[in-house]
């Protein structure tokens, strides 16, 4: 018996040895690496949401139109022409006929219904389908007032964007900006507020005093901005719900370039005094200011990191205007911009990985981004004048204003708002009723 065991052991070893010797993998699967693919907008079909009554059908069509426009503008989706649709999705359809949608090469499909409830409110339901896998990816229902239908559309678009790209959307958000009108020597500048897609434009100030650099609070309920209301430039706070305005802090002299901290409890701003400017933080509850920098230079345009721990700003303390990063409590600042030219208006991305800036070099303006340590500088766009970048809530898109001269001597031209993808592609004008500058993007409204 022991002999048997020995023989067994020997046989095992022999088997092992022969295995090794042959070197043949027992079971090898074929493995294929795919390291590239198409970078193309995802073809998506968004037929009108189905409704029973006439007004419901109309609402369904409007909703689909807004969702479609949002997704299209992002550059990541290609909504298909509704005329190519084969299946006419009706209220009764629980599940789409995928074959019909595959035939027009839709990869994703949105279906849904609109109903008016007894209390007159709108009930909107939608489902997002993976046409190839024949699976539902997402589905939600919302109830809202009739007038609020655009927001529902933006929320639906955000959900689709998020499910397909993996990133948060940014469609349910607003833009505050400076609306400009009138001749150059008598320019009227008003604060204006609109949806991210340019709809629902309204004016917050009457234009009697000059306003600049509006910025949203993290709740998107308040705006801080610079106004010349009392003759000299001061930082103000504007409550969108109540329409109330108040001066921020009781500083002597000029204050400007305000911005909220991520928790909304502080405003950081620049204060000019004796020909130099320094940064101050103001606690909005105690109204007590704290000095952050003490230089003999011009320190301005502060912007918080999304975690609130650091501040990026620009300063000419080293001779030319460059970007610096310091702790949110002040202290030593580290220069991060080292390219040629001047750097200004730094803005920290909401996702924390990049800082956007304006750069002036060789007579041209650029909008660019770099990492918070100053590495990886990338210029996204250039023009005669491009300035004032602001981030979409998901840190994926930038908005800024652009002015191209209308005559050959470099005069004239009017400022307009533009958005651009972080990859430097998909530059689009954001339509405003009048000329526009100094945009600021709100956080998501939810």
């Amino acid at each position, binding site marked *: 018996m*022991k*002999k048997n*065991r*020995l023989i067994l*052991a*020997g046989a095992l*070893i022999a088997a*092992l*040895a022969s295995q*090794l*010797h042959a*070197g*043949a*993998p027992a079971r*090898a*699967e*074929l*493995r*294929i*690496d*795919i*390291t*590239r*693919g*198409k*970078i*193309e907008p*995802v073809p998506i079909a968004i037929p009108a949401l189905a409704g029973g009554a006439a007004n419901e059908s109309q609402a369904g069509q409007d909703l689909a139109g807004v969702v479609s426009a949002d997704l299209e503008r992002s550059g*990541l989706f290609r909504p298909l022409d509704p005329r190519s649709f084969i299946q006419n999705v009706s209220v*009764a359809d*629980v*599940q789409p*006929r*995928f*074959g019909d949608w*595959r*035939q027009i*090469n839709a*990869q994703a499909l949105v279906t849904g219904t609109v109903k008016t409830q007894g209390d007159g409110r709108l009930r909107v*339901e*939608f*489902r997002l389908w*993976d046409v*190839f*896998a*024949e*699976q*539902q990816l*997402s*589905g*939600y*229902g919302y109830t809202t007032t009739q007038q609020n239908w655009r927001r529902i559309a933006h929320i639906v678009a955000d959900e689709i964007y998020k499910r*397909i790209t*993996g*990133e948060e959307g940014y469609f349910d958000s607003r833009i505050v900006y400076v609306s400009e009108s009138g001749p150059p020597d008598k320019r009227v500048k008003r604060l204006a507020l609109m949806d991210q897609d340019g709809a629902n434009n309204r004016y917050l100030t009457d234009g009697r005093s000059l306003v600049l650099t509006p910025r949203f609070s993290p709740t998107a309920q308040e705006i801080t901005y610079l106004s010349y209301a009392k003759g000299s430039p001061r930082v103000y706070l504007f409550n969108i719900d109540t329409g109330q305005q108040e001066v921020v802090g009781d500083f002597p002299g000029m204050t400007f370039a305000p911005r909220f901290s991520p928790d909304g409890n502080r405003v950081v701003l620049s204060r000019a005094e004796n020909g130099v400017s320094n940064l101050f933080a103001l606690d909005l509850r105690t109204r007590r200011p704290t000095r952050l920098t003490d230089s003999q230079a011009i320190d301005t345009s502060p912007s918080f990191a999304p975690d609130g721990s650091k501040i990026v700003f620009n300063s000419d303390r080293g001779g030319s205007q460059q970007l610096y990063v310091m702790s949110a409590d002040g202290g030593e600042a580290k220069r991060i911009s080292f390219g040629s030219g001047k750097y200004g208006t730094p803005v920290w991305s909401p*996702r924390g*990985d990049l800082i956007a800036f304006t750069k002036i070099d060789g007579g041209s303006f650029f909008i660019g981004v770099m990492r918070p340590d100053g590495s990886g500088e990338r210029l996204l766009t250039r023009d005669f004048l491009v300035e004032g970048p602001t981030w979409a809530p998901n840190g*994926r898109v930038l908005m800024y204003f652009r002015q191209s001269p209308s005559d050959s001597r470099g005069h004239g031209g009017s400022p307009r708002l533009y958005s651009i*993808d972080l*990859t430097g592609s998909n530059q689009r004008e954001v339509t405003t009723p009048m000329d526009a500058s100094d945009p600021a993007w709100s956080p998501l409204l939810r």
Partner: protein
Amino acid sequence: MSVATAVSGLTEETVAPDEMPDAVAPRGIALSVALHLVLGSLFIFGLPRLFTPPPPEDMPVAVELVTIAPETRATRPNPNPPRPDAKPEVPTADAPVTKPEPEPPVPTPVPPPSAEAPPPAPEPPRPPEPKPTPPPLLKPPEPKPEPPKPSEKAEAPRPREKPEPPQQMAKNEPKGEQKKYDPGQFETLLKNLAMQSTAPSPDPPPQRPRVASARPSSQPRAPLGSQITASEVDLVRQQITRCWNVPAGARDAKDLVVEVRVAVDPDGTVRQATIVDQGRLSSDPFYRAAAESARRAFFNPLCRPLHLPPDKYAIWKDLVVDFSPKDIL
């Protein structure tokens, strides 16, 4: 000499056990195993050659051992484009000319559960209309689609197994050769050189740096005829590349690697595509978006069926495909 000891040990052990007390046996077995291991390793690695001088160092030429079919079919432009519907898409190469055939009887993974989230679906799912989706989940590998497909493909100019294209290569090489060795006058030489520099452009296939794609491990040891060649892998890689819509610009996207396990029917149609890392799928939305885009590639009409050599089904019936957008971003 070490062999000798091993042998003696072996004989001793085989004789001894019967009359030995039990306590000794384990030690004997251990010894035996150890000695056998020595023997085995000698067998594998050979006796150490202590005195023979090492062979002169040849230059270390790294050679990738991949089988290349007579021709790489991955990137050759289609010479005669009788494509039924000239798609405005990339005019790349021998596109898998699967036009969006209405027929592709997609093996439906599963009838979607109609309510995953809020929206209620009160109505019972209507009996599906005569839609062409055969519901059975795991359809047995019907032999039906197989024969027609290859033939239908064959009329598309994509060379599959037939070795007729070599004439092109054959044409290429000698041409260059002749010119080089032409001892003619200086004039002709110059002329030839000029021709040479211009000539190559039209004919040689714009070969992609056929990166040693097939990893060595993916080459099962098998008789030569049943091995899958690098160019065959190239072909299907190209095909999948065209089907994969990459989620662009996501943060850290280039670090994402999505591993998809794919079961393929004999006709090349993907029956099932499973994302391996299910845990990350539910926890990381970026990963989920990338993984789903990768899985979607196999259901893209352009990738149904996959262009794999039918006679080597045993090799590719189970595939593992790694998707990472590192060459894009």
